[in-house]
């Protein structure tokens, strides 16, 4: 079974530039998550989708971050404009349902460096 795919794996941009990350979840998984992981810390949930609807985006900085999951499959996370403090690894995860005890399967992440 193919895992969660993410691209790009690495991205370096200057502050105030825009960037987008892409995620393809495990086939058939209805729930998709985006996390931000700053060096030395655990992942922090940014947004959770159930199919193509948003379940939780309470920790998403909506003035600069946006995410969509058109057709309930792939998802993109965008930052516009980027700040230095956005340097982190952005992880995508999926689970078969939105059940809180369901196992989340994580992708390898995209490492973003903002200069």
């Amino acid at each position, binding site marked *: 079974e193919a895992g969660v795919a993410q691209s790009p794996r690495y991205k370096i941009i200057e502050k105030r530039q825009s960037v987008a990350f892409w995620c393809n979840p495990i086939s058939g998984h209805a729930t998709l998550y985006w996390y931000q992981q700053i060096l030395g810390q*655990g992942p*922090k949930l940014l947004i959770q989708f159930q199919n193509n609807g948003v379940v939780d985006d309470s920790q998403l900085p909506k003035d600069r971050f946006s995410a969509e999951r058109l057709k309930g499959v792939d998802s993109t996370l965008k930052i516009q404009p980027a700040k230095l403090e956005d340097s982190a690894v952005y992880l995508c995860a999926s689970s078969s349902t939105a059940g*809180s005890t369901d196992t*989340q399967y*994580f992708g*390898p992440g995209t490492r973003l460096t903002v200069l």
Partner: protein
Amino acid sequence: LAKTTQPISMDSYEGQEVNITCSHNNIATNDYITWYQQFPSQGPRFIIQGYKTKVTNEVASLFIPADRKSSTLSLPRVSLSDTAVYYCLFSGNTPLVFGKGTRLSVIA
């Protein structure tokens, strides 16, 4: 907000059993305890989940006392490849909240 507390780091020699304890004084009735493992440059990976007593799988065991205010992840006979960060978290409420985890270093 429900919170877990676990040691920041632990060291162990290869072949030893490692026990990582997590405290969760304010665990709710419907919360499960879940452990994830994260290797460098990878996303976290599910290890084990339990509600009470003992759960065992091919990777680890999870011990949860009757009061459920703590839990212990047990890794039998660790190897160098078990060097990773281990996260204890609740999965009964959305969203999952990851702490800083426990950084386990296995030494040859």
